[in-house]
């Protein structure tokens, strides 16, 4: 269970969104929406513990969470399998076969990651998530550059593997993923331009 209460977060010293509250029960996911620049990426990074909260509280087992962004953490000089094996070792798990299969990477397993196409590289980034098996996933535009078949692979993974095993996912996206999950539009929580708070509030 991920519970967020009255959260505020921002970038560059200014508050972007405030008063965000939601909770995601185990086995369910939440889709974040909102126009460009509203603060989806910022919110996800805050939830994942990569930047400080400005207010409110997040009740989430951080040592069970993983964040995935546009940069996939893929080493171009390692093969697809080597990349996944490395992350498996870091997280102390074994077996990358299932992840390779989920994202249709079996044919590419020996290929250097640097020679993959945009969508193939993205699939590798998603397969990393399948390998490490974290319970709470924060995904920033996971299906960018993916074709329809790959988006379906992702949906199947999310529903049948991740969520069905009691996982939680918060996903920011602009594209309709075809998932049936509640949506949260951040537009409603935009902090007004002159909101008090924010890191630099005491200077004003």
């Amino acid at each position: 269970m991920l519970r967020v209460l009255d959260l505020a977060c921002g970038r560059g010293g200014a508050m972007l969104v405030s008063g965000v509250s939601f909770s995601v029960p185990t086995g369910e996911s939440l889709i974040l929406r909102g126009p460009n620049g509203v603060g989806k990426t910022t919110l996800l990074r805050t939830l994942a513990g990569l930047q400080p909260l400005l207010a409110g509280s997040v009740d989430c087992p951080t040592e069970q969470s993983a964040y995935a962004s546009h940069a996939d953490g893929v080493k171009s000089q390692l093969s697809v399998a080597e990349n996944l094996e490395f992350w498996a070792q870091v997280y102390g798990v074994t077996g990358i076969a299932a992840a390779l299969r989920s994202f249709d990477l079996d044919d590419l397993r020996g290929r250097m990651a640097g020679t993959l196409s945009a969508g193939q590289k993205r699939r590798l980034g998603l397969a990393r998530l399948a390998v490490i098996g974290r319970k709470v996933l924060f995904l920033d535009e996971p299906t960018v550059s993916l074709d329809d078949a790959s988006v379906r692979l992702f949906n199947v993974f999310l529903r049948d593997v991740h969520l069905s095993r009691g996982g939680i996912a918060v996903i920011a996206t602009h594209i309709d993923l075809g998932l049936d999950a509640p949506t949260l539009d951040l537009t409603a929580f935009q902090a007004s331009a002159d909101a008090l708070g924010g890191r630099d509030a005491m200077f004003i």
Partner: protein
Amino acid sequence: MIALLTRDLRLATRAGGGFGLGLAFFLIVIVLVPFGVGPDAAVLARIAPGSLWVAALLAALLSLDRIFALDHEDGSLSLLATAPLPLESVVLAKAAAHWLTTGVPLTLAAPALGFLLHLEGAAYAPLFLGLLLGTPSLSLIGTFGAALTVGLRRGGLLMSLLVLPLYVPTLIFGAEAARRGAAGLDVTVPLMLLGAISAAALAALPFASAYALRVNLR
């Protein structure tokens, strides 16, 4: 941590990974020295210990910016920061990988390059031992500098500026050991001091580096 170390070593030996480049740079700088100061053997012998140490320093320095920058650019670093591995271990693994790919080869090659500069016979042992004891501190201090500048694109030059002053004690004791060796004096004090610097750096700097990394990933 072992996983990270082996991955880094494997990456270093891949195409474009830069293994051996530090060594080659060391060689080239040593070759340039006679072009700069002239071919007089007496002068060269006189400045040989210092030149070897300064060249080793620069070679270590030049490979520093690969330590974190590549992982930062492709996003691995944020992922490692959220992985079940304390950031201090990440830093240690990185420093160890840097030492194994740069410090150790430099130490092994230095005696051979000493010939080129007419290094005194008695200076070989202190030079070798000094590098062996001193290069770990170069890698650890360098990892700290790399952690400070990791968010900056192509921060290599800035990093040199931050790191080189920190290298001064190591350089002084290292070169002093080799020079004392050449003059037939006792070298235990500078060598012990070198070892002490490396030990202290090993004990303290990973925490500072991990803090800097955390700040930079914020």
